[in-house]
């Protein structure tokens, strides 16, 4: 039950972010949706996997994947935002 809810929430958030990237026109608006997609969705989906796996080899790998996405995603988002600010008039 809780796994299904977490999966549905995580996948729904990711799909909403993908649609947001498609529907927005400017690069900085698209970056907001991309930034949300690299933090919120991975946390929910990772939690769904961890409920099933708990502390196992797969669980540790899941924690690593989610941590990498959540930590490194904003770093790339900030670098992209700086680039957009430099290049756009």
């Amino acid at each position: 039950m809780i796994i299904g809810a977490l999966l549905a929430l995580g996948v729904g958030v990711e799909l909403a972010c993908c649609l947001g990237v498609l529907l927005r026109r400017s690069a900085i608006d698209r970056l907001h949706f991309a930034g949300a997609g690299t933090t919120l969705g991975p946390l929910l989906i990772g939690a769904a996997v961890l409920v099933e796996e708990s502390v196992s080899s797969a669980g540790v790998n899941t924690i690593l994947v989610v941590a990498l996405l959540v930590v490194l995603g904003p770093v790339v988002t900030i670098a992209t935002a700086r680039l957009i600010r430099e290049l756009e008039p």
Partner: protein
Amino acid sequence: MNAYLWAATVLLLGLVPLLVVCVRAPPLDALPAVELAGSVTALVLLLLAEGFQRSVYFVVPLALAVMSFVGAFVYVRLLARLR
């Protein structure tokens, strides 16, 4: 099919709008789509690994999470030099 495989299949559909943006938008506008596509693909692989119950498959999304970060940074540097 279990819930993880269904979730991975539905999440794969999220790559379609990102592909449309990558094809149609200018490079700077398409860069956020490329970054999000890396995260979505890593999550799809994570869900597939859990869905197939093979712990060795979990290495693949781990490698992709690192490589998509490196790839996005390469694109950022490349676009900065091309201005």
